[in-house]
Structures are given as C-alpha cells and as structure tokens.
C-alpha cells in the first residue's frame, strides 16, 4: 500500500521544510530588534494551531471504514484510538500512547478474533 516515494520529491521536501522551519525559528529572534513587541493577535491565534492541527492529523486514522464491521468502522483502529486517547489524556506521553495504542491495535486485530471464535 505504501509505495516508495521518489527520492527527488523526498529530498526537495527535506530541503524546503528545513528552510521554512529555520525561518520560523529565527523569525522573531531576528525581527524583535525592529518591532518592540509581539503583535498580540499572532500570539492569540498561534495558541490554537497545535490543538487544531494535531487533532486533525490524528482522528481520521482511527476511523477506518469497514463495511463488514459492526458499526461500519474497523474495530482495531477504533479501539486503539479510544484507548490511546485515554492514555494520552492521563500521561501526555508520546511513547506511552504509542505503546499502549499499538498493543490495543494488535490485540483487537490478532488476538480477539481467536478469543471470539472459542465462544460456542
């Protein structure tokens, strides 16, 4: 499903993103000599970017359409998302969320079907 991206595209992306990221990092450090304070509207708006963007990046991956599954969504990804959200909320720790989320994914996908099959 994931075919290898072309090297040209990858390296161009690396270069462009590196330059843009440096520009973002340097922006106010460079400019603050010229403007006395940070415009408050920038501050206010930037506050919401991480919340909106990170959630937008995360949520769709847990809602995988599956017509054969009860409820229309694949249970493994959904369960991983719900459990992952609980862990993320409590720990705010990346590694913990990934570990528990992946464990949930594998459990629902690989272990649970066998358990269910044992039920007479």
């Amino acid at each position, binding site marked *: 499903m994931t075919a290898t991206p072309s*090297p040209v595209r990858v390296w161009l992306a690396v270069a462009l993103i590196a330059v843009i*990221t440096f520009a973002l990092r*340097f922006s106010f450090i460079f400019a603050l000599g010229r403007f006395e304070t940070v415009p408050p509207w920038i501050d206010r708006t*930037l506050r919401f970017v991480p919340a*909106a963007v990170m959630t*937008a*990046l995360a949520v769709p991956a847990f809602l995988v359409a599956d017509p054969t599954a009860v409820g229309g969504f694949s249970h493994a990804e959904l369960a991983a998302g719900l459990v992952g959200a609980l862990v993320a909320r409590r720990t705010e720790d990346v*590694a913990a969320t990934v570990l528990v989320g992946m464990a949930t994914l594998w459990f629902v996908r690989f272990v649970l079907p066998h358990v269910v099959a044992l039920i007479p």
Partner: protein
Amino acid sequence: MHRPPADFSSGVRDALPLQVGLVPYGFIVGLTAVRLGLTPPEAFGFAAATFAGAAQLAAMNLLAAHVPLLVVVFTAAVVNLRVLMYSASIAPYLQSYRFREKALFASVLVGMSYAHSIAEFQRDDSLDHGWYVFGVSLSLYVVWVGSGLAGIALGGRIPDGLDLTFAVPLVFLALAFSSFRDRPTIAAGLSGGAVAVLSSSLPMRLNLVVAGLFGVGVGLLIDRLGGDPA
C-alpha cells in the same frame, strides 16, 4: 556576567531528563520513516535537517501517500507553526547577541529547549541566555539524531504485518492532548478533528489544512465568547 561556555555546559547538563525522554520519540520517528518507505539516508536527512518530529511524521506520511510536494511542505509548515511562539517568546532574551549567534541559537530551537530555558531564566536571570538555551537545544538535537538512527537501523529488520506506521496518528494523538489546556483549545481540537473526518474526501489531503483553519477559527471564537476582550 557568566562565561558563555560555562552556561552552555549547564544547559547540556540540565537537559538530561529531557534528553532521556526524547529517546523513545526520536526512535519511533526514525523507525516509522523507514516503515513508510523512506530510505535510511532520506530518513536521516529529515531528522538531521528539520529536527521537528511532528512535521517529519506528517511530511513523510504524505510523501508515502504520493501527495503533491507543495501540499506536503505546506502541511509540514502548518504543523510547525507553533515554533513561532517559541521564537517570539525567547527573542527578548537574545537581543544582545550578534546576528551569527542569534542564527545559531535559533537553528535548533524546539519546544522542550524553549520551555525549560524560559523557566530557568525566570529562576536565575544572570544566566547567559543564548548559550544556555543553545546547550539545551544542541544536546537534544544530538539525542534526536542518535535515537533516530537507532530507529532507522531497526526499521528495516521488522517484518511487515505489524502495521507499525500506525504509530504516526498515535504520536499526533499524544501531542494533541498535550496542547489541550482550556476550553478554547479543546474546542479547537474537537472541531479540527471533526472537520478533518467530515472533509476527508477532499483531494490531496487538503482536509488537514481546512480542518486546521476551522479549528483555529473555533478556538478564537470560543476564546472571544469566553469573556475577556484581550
């Protein structure tokens, strides 16, 4: 006045807990890069040149999905926008340095080094601000690249079928919850997530940008409705 080298070393030393905490994250990102189909040099290039985990994951994920380059770069830029906050907030401490030094200190500035350093400056303002934050940042950079290399090395040896790239949305999930601080930010998150799903049929993964814009808008609205006219 502290000597720059001394405070650089203090920064490196003080950042030890942060360095340890960064290892699993860097490892996961390196591992995922290879699982997504990037070659080891490409994965290394991303880590070494950008030093921005969430943006790396977003960009690599989109590259693997053959999304147009411009959208990849733009999405990565949007994911990285919060770096502007760090730049703005630490800039006053760095005003007295030469241009060259400012650029150097800025080049590896990340959320963790910014947050830790600001807290330290408030405790002890006599620190050499620039060299201290550079010590923190550079040590984190070394750890990032090192743990990334370890993840890259392991990534090629893992059998398919484990769906390890599912780590990507899990990382974003953790980062999302870290950013929820109050009602407006939670509103921004929930609406961003909802719109991302509802507009998922848009081409070129534009739903991410649309959702981001919408979420920020909702956040600003709830903030404004909340009472204090800032």
